């Protein structure tokens, strides 16, 4: 596992303490897990994602990620309807390790409470919490 200083947290994303990230793309939120989360988990071997169309509240589990070490729940950083899931992860779960902010994304969500976006963390704040 790497020290926090060697991990990457892009400035254009927003984060939650449960280690998911959010990127807003024309009103739709793309969601995945952070570089820290994938580094802690180690080699990801399976990703379980919801069906598109499902509506979930902020903080609800939307799936799980399994590594050789552990199985962890994935939590919604904001409330909304799942409009797309990353089908590539079912045959290539290693994308989560290789490219957590790119090809390793997990779901795209249409937010139902845009005010929740205010509560998400900026990259610097998330990094600060990891150190604390």
């Amino acid at each position, binding site marked *: 596992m790497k020290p926090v200083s060697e991990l990457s947290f892009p400035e254009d994303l927003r984060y939650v303490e449960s280690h998911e990230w959010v990127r807003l793309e024309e009103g739709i939120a793309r969601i995945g897990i952070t570089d820290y989360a994938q580094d802690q988990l180690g080699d990801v071997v*399976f990703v379980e994602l919801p069906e598109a169309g499902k509506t979930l509240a902020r903080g609800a589990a939307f799936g799980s990620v399994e590594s*050789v070490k*552990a199985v962890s729940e994935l939590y919604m950083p904001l409330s909304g309807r799942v409009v797309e899931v990353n089908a590539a992860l079912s045959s290539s779960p*290693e994308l989560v390790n290789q490219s957590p902010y790119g090809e390793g994304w997990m779901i795209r969500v249409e937010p139902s409470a845009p005010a929740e976006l205010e509560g998400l963390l900026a990259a610097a704040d998330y990094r600060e919490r990891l150190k604390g």
Partner: protein
Amino acid sequence: MNPVQAAAGLVFEEPLLWERGRPGRMGYSLPRRDVEETPVPEALAAEPPEIPELSEVDLVRHYVRLSQWNVAVDTAMYPLGSCTMKYNPKTNERQAALPGFALAHPLLPEALCQGALELIAALECLLAEITGLDAVSLQPGAGAQGELAGMLIFHAFHRRQGRPRSKILVPDTAHGTNPASAALCGYRAVPVASGGQGILEPEAVARLMDEETAGIMITNPNTLGLFEGHVAEIARIVHAKGGLVYGDGANMNAVLGRVDLGRIGVDVLHLNLHKTFATPHGGGGPGAGPVCVTRRLAPFLPVPRVVHREGRFFWSEDFPLSIGKLQAFWGNFGVLVRAYAYILSMGANHLEEVSRLAVLNANYLRVGLRGDYEPAHDRPCMHECVFSDARQRPHGVTTLDIAKRLMDYGFHPPTVYFPLVVPGALMIEPTETESKEMLDLFLAAMAAIAAEAREQPELLREAPRRCLRRRLDEVQAARKPRLTGSPPAP
């Protein structure tokens, strides 16, 4: 003695059974047919599976060779935390092989198996006395099924009270199966964080306990190997709200004959005969997970139950509040015979001694290891001690590497990455059956590994080097598992 217990010896490669077999070879002879030949009914007929065809000697060599690749309590110290891998005395096997037990058919009429029924009744009494609880069912086939039985009893009890409940409290230091057993009964598991000392604090339980909560599941000693010192007060808090207390008895080896679980407020407890009572763990089974309860919960125990009337033992289903039947026939009877033999051959005094020595051995290791490894909690432990790889990580060495390297020294690795509250956990349970000399060899091996981690970390990352199979590709095995064998292509 050299701390490197492992030496290289002659072991054999072994192919899949299909590669050994030849069509037409056979390892058995059927008795002469004494009934008319009848074709298989069409509805039951299907393509036969591809079963390897082998002679007896092929089969025996196959499994004996595979067993030589393995490590067992009969070959090496096996400090697998939370599993209580104590030595299993051979007298247990001798008693279980007595023809009256080993050959008894489960459908024998009661009149022809009074001895087997009496053994079940007597073992129930012994386990009740050992735990301080009032009634016992030996039916559950493993610890997790004992837990499930316990949760079904919680559920049946609250329903009987007319107030079904929806939640259950599970501390973060409880066994990993606890939330799953509760969820199977429809309960939502509410986690309780342990306090700074690694044990539960009554205030934390009081904050969460309410009249929607069925009770609490406590593993005592907990998975950090620490005694839950506030358990009696926690039980009072839970009982005051009408809840029940479940004791996970998986760590019973630490408190055998020393703690009266009934008196500290436990309502339901399961035991693992294959841990505490020296029966084999097998290849994942069979085990036995008897469930013990207080008098007021006895009506809910699984059926059938052995009853004793007018000098005879027989099965009874006449318990209308019972949670029902959990297991085919009467549980894993061979395991029960072994546990009974263990208890009788030890006697009450020596059973108490078991816990004293198990706790002493664990503390001896704890003190011997803390110079090189980071303890999770540097305070006296019960039957197991937990360390982490915090001091090895700066050298790029992880708990997994340490565990693999221990194999080169000839020790089974400890439990790793559990409990989850300790990152990189190494959970070490020596049990009472290891001598001081063996514990010293283990400490010497661990000290040597700590030195290697500092000076030659690549030795650890490449371990094991002495095993027939080197480090397995766990990632590939999980991503692309091959779960069945198949005959070689013609």
